[in-house]
C-alpha cells in the first residue's frame, strides 16, 4: 500500500487522544507554528486531565494584541485548553506573570492544576533527552536558583551540573508549513520553533500544515522533520486567523 499519513479532518486526527493523555503543543512566538485547528478539535472533544507540555502557561492574547490582530481576545493557542479546564498538569518554560489575572495561576493556587515550571533550556533539553533515548543529562543551568530543588547536583571537571530527566509525551501537536504524504515536514521562518523537537519527543505526532504535497515535492536536503517522527498530517483551511 502506498503510505499516506494524511487525515481528512481535525476531529479524526485527534480521535485517539483521550482523558489523561500527555500532549506537547508547539507555538509561542508569533502566529506561525501554532496547530490552531487541532487545538480547537481537542477543545470540541472535551477530553480532560491532560498533561500539557508547552512553552507557556498562558494564552498569548497580549502578543496577539501587539500584532494588532482583529479579535485578539479570541487568539487560539495551547492556552485554550487551560482556559477550558481540560488540563490537570502543566510542564512549561514560562508559567505566568504573578498577579496579572492569570487563569493558570488561579487554577494552580486552587489546587486544580499541578505545575512544573522548568525554565527554557531545561524544558528543551529534557524533551531532547526523551527524543534521543537518553536516561538523563547533566546540564549547567539553574545552579544556585530555585531550579536546583529536588535535582541531583554533580561537579564534573570543576563545574556544577544538574541532572535532568527525559521528557516524552503521548502526543505532539505541531504546526508546520508543508508536509508530504509520508509525513516529512518543512517549516516557514521562526514557525519552526518547537516543531522538530516535539515531533521527535512524542510517541504520536500530529502535524497541522498549510500545504500537503506528494512524496518528492520536498527536496531531500530541505526536510527538517523526517517523516519517521510524524504519524498523522492534516491540512489547515486557508487563513483562519487573520
Amino acid at each position: 500500500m502506498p503510505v499516506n499519513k494524511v487525515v481528512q479532518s481535525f476531529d479524526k486526527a485527534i480521535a485517539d487522544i483521550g482523558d489523561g493523555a500527555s500532549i506537547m503543543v508547539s507555538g509561542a512566538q508569533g502566529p506561525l507554528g501554532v496547530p490552531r485547528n487541532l487545538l480547537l478539535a481537542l477543545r470540541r472533544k472535551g477530553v480532560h486531565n491532560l498533561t500539557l507540555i508547552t512553552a507557556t502557561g498562558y494564552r498569548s492574547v497580549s502578543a496577539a494584541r501587539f500584532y494588532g490582530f482583529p479579535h485578539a481576545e479570541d487568539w487560539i493557542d495551547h492556552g485554550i485548553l487551560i482556559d477550558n479546564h481540560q488540563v490537570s498538569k502543566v510542564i512549561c518554560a514560562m508559567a505566568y506573570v504573578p498577579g496579572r489575572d492569570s487563569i493558570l495561576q488561579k487554577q494552580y493556587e486552587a489546587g486544580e492544576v499541578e505545575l512544573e515550571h522548568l525554565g527554557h533550556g531545561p524544558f528543551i533539553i529534557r524533551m531532547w533527552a526523551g527524543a534521543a533515548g537518553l536516561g538523563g543529562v547533566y546540564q549547567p543551568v539553574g545552579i544556585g536558583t530555585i531550579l536546583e530543588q529536588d535535582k541531583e547536583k554533580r561537579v564534573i571537571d570543576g563545574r556544577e551540573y544538574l541532572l535532568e530527566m527525559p521528557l516524552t509525551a503521548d502526543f505532539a501537536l505541531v504546526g508546520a508549513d508543508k508536509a508530504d504524504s509520508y509525513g516529512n515536514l518543512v517549516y516557514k521562518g521562526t514557525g519552526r520553533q518547537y516543531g522538530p523537537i516535539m515531533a521527535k519527543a512524542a510517541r504520536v505526532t500530529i502535524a497541522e500544515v498549510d500545504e500537503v504535497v506528494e512524496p518528492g515535492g520536498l527536496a531531500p536536503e530541505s526536510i527538517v522533520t523526517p517523516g519517521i517522527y510524524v504519524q498523522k498530517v492534516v491540512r489547515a483551511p486557508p487563513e483562519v486567523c487573520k
Partner: protein
Amino acid sequence: MKERLDEQTMALRVARELQDGWYVNLGFGIPALCTNFIPENKTIFFFAENGLLGFGRNADYDEAGRLGWRYVDAAAHPVLPVPGMAVFDYAEAFDMIRGGHIDCTVLGGLQVSGKGDLANWRLPIYKGKGGTIGGAMDLAACCKRVFVVMTHTEKSGKPKIVRECTYPLTAKGCVDLIVTDIAVIRVTERGLTLEETAPGWIAAEVQELTEASLEVSPNLRVMEL
C-alpha cells in the same frame, strides 16, 4: 549434506517479515539483499545511519557519477534517491536509532544466545582494542525489533546459536527473530522457539546443529519460499 538455503533465499525469507510502512535498517552482507525482495505493494522506508531515510536501490558507477556521488548509504555504496527521501546528519540519525524510532533492523550475526544476546562485530581471536564497532551496538540495543539473518553454523560446522555467546557481545537480549539457512527461530522470554524449517529439514536435525535448546512450536511448518 542436506541442501541449505542460499543467501538470496535467506534474504527473501527475512524480507517477508518487514511490514508495510516500517522504517527499516539493513546491515551489511545478507541483510542488504532484502531490498531485492520487497513486493511492489509494500512501502518500506530504508534507513542508513549516515543520514538517509527512504532511499532507493544501489546506483551503478555511471549513475553515481551523474549524481555527483550525492547519496551514499552507510556501507559507502551510492544509492538512488526516491521521492519522499530525507537527508540529515549523523547526530539526527543516531537520535533516531537511540530514541527507538526505527521499527526494525536486520543484522548479520556471528553468534546469538538462547537469551537473544547478539555477537556480531568482531571475531574473538583478536585481543586488542581494535575492530569496527560502528553502529552495530546502537542498532541492536535500540531498534524496536532486531532480526538476525546468518548461516546456522560456522564454516567449520560449529553452531552459531549458542547457550552463551563466547564472542565479544554487541548487545544483550536484543534479538527477536533468527532466520538461518535451515530454520526460522523466534526469541521469546521463555527462550528459542523453532517456528520453521527449510525444505527437507526436520526439527531434530536443526536442534542437532544448535547448541542452545529449541522449543518446537506447535505450529512448526516448512518455510514457504
